[in-house]
């Protein structure tokens, strides 16, 4: 057993802290990881609503190109033209802000920020993050970034509109599109703050996981959620600085006359002096973050699902080691596939071959993960809690969207599919919807721990079914539209006689999008209603094995009132043959479960005795 961990767990600390905070220190400038997690969650929900609303507006344009939408004038003002149409530049701004918000503000900050913060200390048995103060700074850097990004939506020249990938020269030249003026500046400032927030958070997550695990919680006993958050933080720490440097050089090009990305440009009736720069350089730098970013978004969702699927199948997660192995492998490989976004950028075709090979290799660990989920369900005793349904939905999206990645990773096929709606379908399923479902899954599952109350199950089911069906209705048809050659980021397809045969399908997609978006109101209602009015939760409502369920129903500052429980076993002893209950939490020593121990586990009993005599088990299941 790993006993090398050093712990800072003086039990005396904290008891008297939690009652002394005033409103400001408790709810606003809190250093408690649980409160910070909730702050991230609420901010994430806010952004999801904004991001979703933007997509509904541009879907109106795509689905109903002839409709008069002057009724949106009160909201959009001059961005609605005289003819009652959306302004084409504003369309691009909407797409850009939608992508940026969803990827960074909702699924990076909202997902990792919420669950890494909430679960890392609770699941590894720590009183708080390594540095509560840094954690607080991380949230406030994010909040500041959010304010800047939000303000940029309302400025005269409109928000950034060069796509969420902000390729220069488009993003560098205000002459090229009006969003590249002040809007782009604010975008860059907001993203710089955002990166600061990510780095502060990431360092903290990593330090906490490495240093603050409770006694017995070796890496080989960590729940997969923690593994996922840990690797996500590592990826973020390695890749976000590269985005920062890319952004910095762009700022120089924009404001200080450098030519990192600019060369040979004639625009607005004049030839610019810049020479020798390379727009492709930016793409390399951007995607060096950009590709890992999709795993930053996805891995936490997969971690959450692993935990939820095991708990609700009442079975150990199948292939625990393989799950960790594939996540590690994915984390490493995610750094060497970035140029698959650039097959037709003019990059050397030989590089294209190399990146095709590496990209298709990364499909293998992803496949392994899917098979492991399926085998975990096999012969389970499945409880369909709302969280479980969202987990199953995630697996389905991960399969459907992951498979289309095999098309796009193939450079020959990508010639045709690059930047068409096929790509939009692909990443929305595998990254957007899967991660979004991971996030919802986590909210439903850990809501009782966050707020001490249960969310309403029935509303949860309704929410799931409307969303699950809705997401497929929105994104599945986009595959066909993409195969037919429709480019993305198009304001309208009416110019294309031969590409104009899909107006029905486009309308269908738009209606489905509005439907899906509306369905989220069910969630909102359930969420906020349950915070105050939900049924009171019990200590371990899902009969789960991980440590967070050994805390009081509403854990205070410091998480455990007494000593932190020690950990003896892995987190997946569900339905162990011989045991009375179908779950044995991590802090139950083997000496208490002789009836279900495997042979090598009986050996562990001796070690347990030697190690510590006064094990304090804080649990109502002491009787077993």
């Amino acid at each position, binding site marked *: 057993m790993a006993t090398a961990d050093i712990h800072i767990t003086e039990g005396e600390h904290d008891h008297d802290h939690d009652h002394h905070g005033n409103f400001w220190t408790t709810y606003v400038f809190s250093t408690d990881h649980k409160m910070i997690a909730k702050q991230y969650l609420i901010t994430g929900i806010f952004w999801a609503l904004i991001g979703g609303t933007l997509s509904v507006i541009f879907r109106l344009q795509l689905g109903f190109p002839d409709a008069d939408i002057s009724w949106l004038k009160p909201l959009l003002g001059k961005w609605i033209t005289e003819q009652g149409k959306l302004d*084409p530049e504003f369309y691009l701004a909407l797409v850009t802000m939608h992508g940026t918000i969803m990827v960074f503000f909702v699924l990076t900050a909202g997902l990792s920020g919420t669950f890494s913060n909430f679960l890392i200390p609770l699941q590894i048995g720590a009183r708080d993050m390594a540095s509560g103060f840094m954690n607080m700074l991380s949230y406030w850097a994010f909040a500041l970034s959010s304010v800047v990004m939000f303000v940029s939506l309302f400025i005269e020249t409109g928000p950034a509109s060069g796509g969420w990938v902000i390729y220069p020269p488009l993003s560098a030249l205000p002459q090229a599109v009006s969003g590249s003026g002040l809007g782009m500046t604010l975008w860059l400032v907001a993203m710089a703050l955002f990166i600061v927030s990510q780095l502060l958070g990431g360092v903290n997550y990593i330090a906490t996981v490495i240093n603050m695990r409770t006694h017995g919680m070796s890496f080989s006993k960590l729940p997969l959620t923690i593994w996922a958050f840990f690797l996500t933080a590592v990826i973020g720490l390695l890749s976000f600085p590269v985005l920062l440097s890319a952004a910095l050089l762009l700022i120089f090009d924009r404001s200080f006359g450098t030519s990192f990305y600019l060369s040979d440009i004639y625009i607005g009736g004049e030839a610019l002096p810049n020479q020798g720069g390379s727009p492709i350089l930016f793409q390399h730098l951007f995607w060096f973050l950009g590709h890992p970013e999709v795993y930053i978004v996805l891995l936490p969702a997969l971690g959450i699902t692993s935990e939820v699927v095991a708990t609700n199948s009442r079975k150990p997660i199948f292939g625990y080691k393989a799950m960790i192995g594939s996540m590690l492998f994915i984390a490493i490989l995610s750094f060497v596939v970035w140029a698959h976004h650039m097959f037709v950028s003019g990059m050397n075709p030989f590089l294209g071959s190399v990146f095709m090979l590496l990209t298709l290799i990364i499909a*293998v660990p992803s496949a392994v993960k899917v*098979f492991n989920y399926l085998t975990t369900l096999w012969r*389970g005793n499945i409880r369909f809690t709302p969280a479980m349904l969202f987990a199953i939905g995630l697996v389905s999206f991960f399969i459907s969207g992951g498979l289309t990645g095999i098309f796009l990773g193939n450079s020959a096929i990508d010639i045709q599919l690059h930047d068409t709606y096929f790509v939009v379908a692909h990443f929305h399923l595998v990254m957007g919807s899967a991660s979004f479902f991971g996030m919802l899954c986590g909210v439903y599952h850990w809501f009782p721990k966050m707020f001490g109350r249960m969310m309403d199950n029935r509303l949860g089911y309704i929410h799931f079914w409307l969303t699950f069906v809705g997401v497929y209705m929105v994104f599945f048809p986009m595959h066909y539209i993409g195969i037919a050659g429709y480019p993305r980021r198009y304001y309208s397809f009416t110019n294309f006689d031969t590409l104009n045969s*899909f107006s029905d399908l486009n309308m269908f997609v738009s209606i489905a999008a509005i439907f899906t978006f509306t369905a989220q109101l069910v969630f909102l*209602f359930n969420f906020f209603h349950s915070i105050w009015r939900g049924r009171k939760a019990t200590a371990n409502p899902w009969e789960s094995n991980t440590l967070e369920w050994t805390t009081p129903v509403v854990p205070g500052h410091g998480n455990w009132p007494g000593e932190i429980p020690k950990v003896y076993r892995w987190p997946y002893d569900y339905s162990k043959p011989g045991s009375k209950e179908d779950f044995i939490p991590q802090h139950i020593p083997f000496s208490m479960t002789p009836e279900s121990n495997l042979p090598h586990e009986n050996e562990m009993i001796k070690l347990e005795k030697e190690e510590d005599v006064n094990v304090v088990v804080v649990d109502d299941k002491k009787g077993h």
Partner: protein
Amino acid sequence: MFKVIIAIGVVLLVIILLTLFRIGTLVNVVKGTNKEKVGSSNKINAGLLLLFMFVAFGLFFWYSIVYFDDYTLPQASEHASSVDFAFWLTMGLTGVVFVVTNVLLFIFSFKYQHKEGGRGKFYPDNTKLEILWTVVPAITLAGLVLTGLSAWNNITSKASDDAEVVEVMGYQFAWGVRYPGNKDAELGAYDYRLIDASNQFGIDLTDENSYDDFMPLELHLPKGKEVLMKIRARDVIHSVFMPHFRVKMDAVPGMPTHFKFTPNKTTQEMRDELGDPEFDYFITCTEICGRGHFSMKLKVVIEEPEAYEAWKAEQPTWLKLNEDYLEKVPAEKRELAKIKAGIEDNTETEASL
């Protein structure tokens, strides 16, 4: 109109939901909450998952088959078939995996739904199985990589020396095309600093090769002949996309790119094939480039080689259309320029060239 429909829909939805919620709460109160581990909802959800599977797959197969011709594009270049082969091979393999894994997901969910007194099977791992399903995808993917690689290497290989050269330039918000001309087969040099309202390409008139270059308003290409398309951009990144030819390549300011392909169906042949007399090939832009991104369309005409040559011979040179630019031609080359540009129709001098 559809405002109203949406509004009604939303209101109805909200009403239904609130009712359900209210009923649910009341039922809960009557029943006494949550005595059993799972309620009847477990069965319902399991059943719905199965139902979803059938309906969704039904729709998927129905649409994919019935509308096949609508969403697949005909091929109009020689390499198109290798791209499509890689595509459909991948579709076949991933299609099977898509169906099988999704079916397993929903069937397992349904079949192993909670049963009172039942228990999960404690089955933490199985090394053989795991190795198997690591190795099989790896081999399958290796196969896909190989087909992809061979197509890719073939497509991106060097163009032959006698390929028909044409230049395409993207700018906000249109495409310009330039041909090397009828007198020499070389595109003239250019410099972006020379661009002005008439000299859209920044043609460098000190280079003799530029005198006979011409810039028509459509892109014409011969059937059956290899074409080397030289691609550049003037302001921001654009991307040349010719869907029927399976051609796509970014147009990057400061970094010329190219794409080589061989058209193999004339416009007329494609019209006949599609039964659409109005049909025209086109180039469109697939890299976001600003306000008019969606409208960067250029008509492409594929003709039999003879027709193509005839069309080419008719095209006036740029210099001929912009005679005042003769001033920019260095004095000693002006005569030559006039001849090459077809301004002075002197067959004698021409013959002596």
